């Protein structure tokens, strides 16, 4: 890849900004004296920070902060890209290359390509380098938790909006309906400040890439026009070198003599390839004088060396227990478990070894890499003899609750309720007497059926005429009671009914779940509601912060709230128009029916649901909230303008 370069102006002079081939320095060459030496050279290791103007601005500039060794303060170099058409692309390319170079310079290790002799040290180094590259572009490991960064990352926000459909609709709608006094950057920052968790999750999700996989088994030749073609990408070559260091060795030794294409074509046809894949080598495979030398390479010794290097806790160290090997004299182990006969079934070994190698490059899932290598805490806990240790100390923080009796005592100075006042008017002795007499009456009369007073044959009209004479359990009160309970049941059902049933049907009929509104109106309504809630949140956070500098913001937001009211009214009128259309349709139906059959059908037009009433009913809490916000604002405004005038 050619190192990126771009035409940029530095200190008002035209020139070219470029990165050296080894990614170690950046230099800028002025155009004016042709083919002159670079006027400004910066070593990548001294660069501490990079800044670039955002994608939305017209000017494309790159600012580099470099700290020369020995000087404590960083100096800044500003380059403005002057190319007519490709300024942005060039700037991006240079910035990407530079940030990568800076990162590699900082972490101090190249990509994890380990040479032949693997050891625990290289595994840990590979692990360490994987960890440092996990947070993504930034070199600080707090990248995921840096809220400010997430808020400014426009690309991330855009991709999240693309992925999440309702969110993008809310965002676009609030952007569209905002008043001109609030800048869009303010709105976006407010919008995203409450949704940082979404951004973070999305960023982490985007950053996941596919892990290592067994490359050799995925390379398959394709037959095109009677010729066998095979294409491999650079990435696959890298993976092959990682997973089979033998191939890298062969390549290094042989490529200056053979061309690359010749090498690879011979490699993929050779026995070595088959062996590495793990397939059995039959007698009729072609032999290759160069590559067959490496057939003798013994993978086992390498593995054994690696195993010995990794620390095995003594208590599970089986090899250390060689004395106790039962299979020395007893049954021979299964065919697959016998130490010899690797050539018969090589695939098992090869695949196992390959998987181990792949996994060793991946950060382990259950081991905390910050712990020292060796026996970690969990293993130690498992090995420790718990019975011999004493009881664990209680590590609790005592919450001092003072004077619990206060909560259970009655407060005589508390405000007196209306009921208490009524009770105070009653004479306690009289009260007790009347109750006792009442009870005595029912004790003597043990016939419950007359006591409850339910008379099935009674006529309701009798009771209605003299309400004082009606007794407990008369028909009207019983039916009123059941009516009340039935209405409560209806309300419960309306609220808790399974809405998924309604939405899974394919009809476009207005269902009760949308309160008789059509689907489009309902969507519009929910969108309006979401944007209004957004503005309300914004308003309250600005209003209650007491920050005088945000006063103009608060005033602008009140304007948005007014507009929100108008929007709600607009949706209500539209819904009403729809409802009218439904009513007209129904009227026409009745008319047709009459003309056809001569019978009049009575239809109650008022009971058709939907329309402005439903909209107002659904959005009543929002409207109330807007009213409260406006009232509070006006009150505060009046007070403070009086203060300002008086003071």
């Amino acid at each position, binding site marked *: 890849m050619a190192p990126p370069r771009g035409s940029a102006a530095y200190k008002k002079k035209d020139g070219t900004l470029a990165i050296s081939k080894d990614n170690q320095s950046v230099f800028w060459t002025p155009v004016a004296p042709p083919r002159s030496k670079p006027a400004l050279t910066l070593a990548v290791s001294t660069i501490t920070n990079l800044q670039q103007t955002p994608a939305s601005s017209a000017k494309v500039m790159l600012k580099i902060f470099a700290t020369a060794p020995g000087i404590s303060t960083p100096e800044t170099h500003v380059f403005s890209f002057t190319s007519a058409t490709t300024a942005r692309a060039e700037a991006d390319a240079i910035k990407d290359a530079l940030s990568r170079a800076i990162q590699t310079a900082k972490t101090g290790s190249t990509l994890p390509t380990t040479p032949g002799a693997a050891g625990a040290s290289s595994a840990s180094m590979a692990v360490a380098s994987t960890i440092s590259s996990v947070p993504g572009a930034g070199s600080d490991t707090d990248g995921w938790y840096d809220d400010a960064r997430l808020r400014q990352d426009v690309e991330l926000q855009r991709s999240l909006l693309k992925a999440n459909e309702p969110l993008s609709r809310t965002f676009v709608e609030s952007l569209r309906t905002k008043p001109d006094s609030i800048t869009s950057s303010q709105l976006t920052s407010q919008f995203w400040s409450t949704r940082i968790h979404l951004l973070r999750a999305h960023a982490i999700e985007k950053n996941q890439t596919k892990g290592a996989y067994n490359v050799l088994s995925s390379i398959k030749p394709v037959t095109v026009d009677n010729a066998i073609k095979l294409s491999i990408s650079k990435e696959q070559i890298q993976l092959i070198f990682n997973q089979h260091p033998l191939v890298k060795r062969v390549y290094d030794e042989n490529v200056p003599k053979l061309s690359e294409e010749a090498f690879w074509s011979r490699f993929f046809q050779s026995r070595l390839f088959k062996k590495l894949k793990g397939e059995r080598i039959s007698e009729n495979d072609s032999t290759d004088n160069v590559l067959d030398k490496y057939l003798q390479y013994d993978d086992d010794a390498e593995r054994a060396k690696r195993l010995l290097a990794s620390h095995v806790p003594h208590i599970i160290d089986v090899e250390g227990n060689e004395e106790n090997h039962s299979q020395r004299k007893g049954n021979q182990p299964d065919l697959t478990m016998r130490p010899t006969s690797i050539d018969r079934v090589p695939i098992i070994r090869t695949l196992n070894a390959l998987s181990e190698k792949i996994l060793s490059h991946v950060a382990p899932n259950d081991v905390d890499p910050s712990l020292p290598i060796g026996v970690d805490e969990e293993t130690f806990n498992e090995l420790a003899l718990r019975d011999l240790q004493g009881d664990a100390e209680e590590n609790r923080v005592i919450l001092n609750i003072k004077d619990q009796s206060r909560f259970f005592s009655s407060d005589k100075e508390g405000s007196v309720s209306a009921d208490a006042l009524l009770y105070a008017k009653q004479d306690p002795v009289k009260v007790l007497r009347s109750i006792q007499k009442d009870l005595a009456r029912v004790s003597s009369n*043990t016939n419950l059926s007359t006591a*409850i007073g339910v008379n099935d044959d009674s006529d309701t009209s009798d009771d209605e005429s003299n309400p004082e004479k009606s007794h407990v359990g008369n028909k009207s009160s019983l039916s009123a*009671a*059941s009516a009340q*309970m039935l209405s409560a049941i209806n309300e*419960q059902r309306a609220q808790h009914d399974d809405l998924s049933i309604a939405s899974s049907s394919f009809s476009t009929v207005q269902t009760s779940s949308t309160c008789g509104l059509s689907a489009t109106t309902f969507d519009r309504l929910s969108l309006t509601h979401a944007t209004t809630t957004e503005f309300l949140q914004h308003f309250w956070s600005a*209003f209650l912060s*007491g920050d005088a500098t945000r006063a103009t913001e608060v005033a602008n937001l009140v304007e948005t709230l007014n507009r929100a009211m108008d929007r709600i009214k607009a949706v209500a009128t539209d819904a009403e128009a729809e409802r009218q259309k439904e009513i007209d349709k129904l009227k026409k139906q009745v008319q047709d029916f009459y003309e056809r059959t001569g019978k009049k059908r009575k239809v109650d037009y008022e009971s058709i649901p939907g329309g402005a009433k439903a909209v107002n009913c659904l959005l009543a809490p929002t409207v109330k909230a807007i009213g409260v916000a406006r009232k509070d604002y006006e009150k505060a405004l009046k007070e403070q303008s009086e203060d300002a005038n008086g003071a």
Partner: protein
Amino acid sequence: MNAVDGSDHYSKTSDEPPPSLLTIILDTNPNAWALLSPTLPLSAAIANLLVFINAHLAFNNANKVAIIASHTQRAEFLYPLPAHEISPHINGSNTHNGDVEMADGDEPTVAEETSTDDANHYRPFRQIQSTLLTSLSTLLKTTSPTSLTPTTSIAGALTLALTYINRCTLNASTTSPNPTTTTPSDNALNPDTAPPPLHPRILILSVSGDLAHQYIPIMNTIFACQRLSIPIDIAKISGDTVFLQQASDATHGTYIKLEHPRGLLQYLMMGFLPDQSCRGFLVAPTAVGVDFRAACFCHRRVVDVGFVCSICLSIFCSPPEGAICLTCGTHLQLGEYGEKPAVVAKKKKKKRDMVDGKAKEATVRSRPG
């Protein structure tokens, strides 16, 4: 044994719904009942209640009932009576061998239970009726006029109910035919637990309000019921609702505010009779909105916007003096709340309540209300 013995053991599992225990807490505040007597006198209410209890017992042979009176300053069992209270009655009534002891009409006395049984009255029903009436009269007889208060001890009654339920559940589980460890074929869902042998629930007939002083004890019992999944049903005949709505909402019970107290029987039979196994299939006529307000810890006032200590979660209506939480004694720091909203663009200095370096923050929670 089942594991060792290779044969299959078929333990008989009953397919009937488990019996249910209904605990009724009757609010016997005399003031409140006296106020109510034009519309619903206590005698009529008791009669309706007895019919309801009979219906409940008729559903299942093994159904049980318990009645607790929540009086002005104490809570007592009305049925079943504790053992030491029964014997004096038995002694008292047997002396006259069937004669009813009559007394003057002026004095408020209690008619002793007649030992002649009415042959047409089903015995268990009759027993409950007579015990209930006798204990209620005794309770009122022993109430002194000075002890009347506007409130009622619901918290005590709830606690009594919970202890009784606990005892009955323990009794039922030891005597049930199903052992607690059943084979996996018995229970499709959860092989470890058998269905509970007894379904308890609590019904509160409330006529008085003013429960703000008992907020904490009531909330404790509510959480205990929530844990044990005991629904608390509430029939509010009159009085302030305060926290009882939260009780039924938290425990998935039914809360009905009786708008027509004369139809008490209909409310009881339609709304409160189904037991827990039926409630899964029915829509309960419970009130839709719930009043979630709480009482502040300092004045026992009902608040909907207040201050909450972040350590012990106690609620205050206004910031406590010295910014020290009244319950746990930690220093609290107020955040930016309470700043005068600056709507006129002018330079203003912000006031902040800094207490000390290790201050914790008291944050504001607002409740819908």
